[in-house]
């Protein structure tokens, strides 16, 4: 008898729990939920938090402007991927349970790809602000969009710069074996060979290493004209730059978009002077970027990170599309996304059929502790 009573109470309690969350919300008072996923912890937490905050600003801007008709307000849910494929899939499932209608993220291509498969099953739109692997949009997923550029555009752009501008004859490449950094480094090696630049060696280090003295001693002994650094993280990039300069390596230093971050100069300081990095062109004098920068700095106390503007634009693009469609129905929002052509904080954005938005890699030079646009890969001209 007693057991029955306990069971009954337990069932009642459970019932109440479900009643609590089951209530259909009335039309017109629906909350529009979008999710972000990025590495909020672990070695890539810096870029990951930039992504979360960028999207947050976009949501804030829309809420302040009166929201979107048909929705009571816009909410954002953030999940941590830690740049780990398994955790990214778990994050995707959590966001599905939260009933988000779109996801901005992730950061590492190796997380974005499995997460996007999970989201695709539920027809949830995913817009990545930072994953540059060609595979992200080459799998034919209908609801996958990309706001940043592609590695197979970045590698040739970097090599073209080496050949045409710096007249480099020999290079030494180091990557840290992530899907992204190694893929890009291999792309650079192939493009360099094709362009007649000799790749002296392509070596690897491990993620999380702090001591690069061994590999840098090799670089020094090889005397390359240019030392290409393809690491997943700007902080480790800074470590490599510092150690390279202190060891007396006088080769031209070049990095890529994951190394491109204000933190690079903050750590490497004078040692980073004169280094080149490829990154999607962001016009920092454009009113749209300035506006974003002001809001971002006011909210976070930091200058926008490398991918903040891309993340802001990804969320903005989605919200604009929902506003135009008047619904979160993925098929209709997709049509609206493809129709978009707007000036974002990062660049002019118009998505193509495969979800890409075009690459516009620019070579930046570090001068006076700042990334200064140096060479435009689209025109082949110096700024």
């Amino acid at each position, binding site marked *: 008898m007693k057991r029955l009573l306990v069971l009954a109470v337990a069932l009642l309690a459970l019932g109440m729990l479900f009643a609590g969350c089951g209530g259909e919300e009335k039309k017109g008072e629906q909350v529009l939920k979008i999710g972000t996923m990025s590495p909020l912890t672990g070695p890539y937490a810096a870029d990951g938090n930039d992504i979360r905050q960028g999207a947050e600003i976009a949501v804030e801007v829309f809420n302040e402007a009166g929201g979107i008709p048909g929705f009571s307000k816009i909410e954002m849910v953030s999940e941590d991927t830690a740049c780990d494929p398994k955790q990214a899939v778990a994050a995707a499932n959590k966001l599905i349970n939260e009933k988000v209608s779109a996801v901005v993220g992730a950061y590492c291509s190796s997380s974005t790809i499995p997460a996007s498969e999970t989201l695709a099953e539920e027809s949830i739109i995913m817009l990545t602000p930072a994953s540059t692997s060609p595979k992200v949009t080459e799998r034919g997923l209908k609801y996958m969009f990309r706001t940043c550029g592609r590695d197979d555009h970045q590698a040739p752009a970097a090599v073209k710069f080496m050949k045409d501008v710096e007249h480099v004859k020999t290079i030494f490449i180091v990557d840290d074996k992530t899907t992204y950094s190694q893929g890009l480094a291999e792309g650079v090696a192939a493009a360099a060979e094709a362009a007649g630049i000799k790749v002296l060696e392509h070596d690897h280090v491990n993620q*999380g*290493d702090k001591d690069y003295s061994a590999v840098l001693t090799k670089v020094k002994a090889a005397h390359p004209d240019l030392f290409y650094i393809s690491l997943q993280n700007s902080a480790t990039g*800074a470590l490599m730059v510092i150690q390279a300069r202190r060891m007396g390596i006088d080769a031209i230093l070049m990095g890529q978009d994951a190394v491109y971050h204000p933190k690079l100069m903050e750590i490497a300081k004078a040692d980073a002077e004169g280094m080149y990095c490829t990154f999607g062109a962001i016009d920092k004098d454009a009113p749209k970027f300035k506006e974003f920068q002001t809001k971002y700095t006011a909210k976070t106390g930091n200058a926008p990170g490398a991918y903040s503007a891309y993340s802001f634009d990804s969320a903005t693009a989605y919200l604009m599309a929902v506003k135009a469609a008047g619904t979160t129905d993925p098929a209709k929002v997709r049509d609206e996304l493809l129709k978009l052509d707007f000036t974002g904080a990062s660049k002019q954005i118009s998505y193509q059929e495969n979800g890409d938005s075009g690459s516009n890699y620019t070579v930046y030079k570090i001068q006076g502790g700042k990334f200064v646009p140096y060479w435009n890969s689209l025109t082949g001209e110096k700024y």
Partner: protein
Amino acid sequence: MDFFLQQLINGITLGGVYALIALGYTMVYGIIQLINFAHGEFFAAGGYMGVILISYLSSQGLHPYACLVISLVLSMGYCALLAMAVEQLAYKPLRQASRLAALLSALGMSIFLQNGLMLTQGVYDRAYPTEITSGGFEVGALSISYMQILIVAVTASLLVGLNILVFKTRIGRAMRATAQDKVMSALVGINSNRIIALTFAVGAGLAAAAGIMVGLYYGSVNYTMGFVPGIKAFAAAVLGGIGNITGALVGGLIIGMVEIFAAGYISGEYKDVFAFVILIGVLYFKPTGIMGENVDDTRV
């Protein structure tokens, strides 16, 4: 030849850092047979305390070397206190429990401290001021930075200090006695709880010094920085014969050298593999570690 010598210098520097961290593992293991997995976090905390203090002191216009010495002493003290608190909180209540419980508690503490560091200091890397760290000289084709000399010098002097503490003082004798037999040494009037806390404090102080050295050498610190060197230093301690102070030094140097030479002559991606292959080999053929035979006499 130059290439070899340069790699040798790199190896000694890295090995010195591993040795400093390994000493803490070995001392704590020697006295209470606990592998303190939170030890790498003391290293990270020391590095952070160093960057905070050095940045502050140098903004006050102090001479860079004065900043360094003051910060070194203060962060070692801070980490010593932190380690004693951790010991009180996480290990002392479990002293009579199974070893597994203490080990799990150590793992938990490691995660707790790492996250504490992340929440209080942020996820971004913190940069050390560079006035102290830059500069060096060339000998033929070899380049030696002042930081490399500093690391070796600090490691050497701390080791000498530790040896004096353990083998020439009353406290050291009490430590050795406690390591041999806690109950018996308590019976002859040694406060074993105090000695254990002190061992933790000394080990953490050494790790803090290593944290500052690494921060200065590499230019920045990060809240995850304790994990990988922690594991490597643990390997070094086991390799040298866990519980043995000289063993920790030898093990640290070996792991550092192997890592650098593997990266230099084979490839950077295999260096960790080689370090651990050697570890496994030693454990297979000589489970007590290299200096293992006289564990009972000299362990702490």
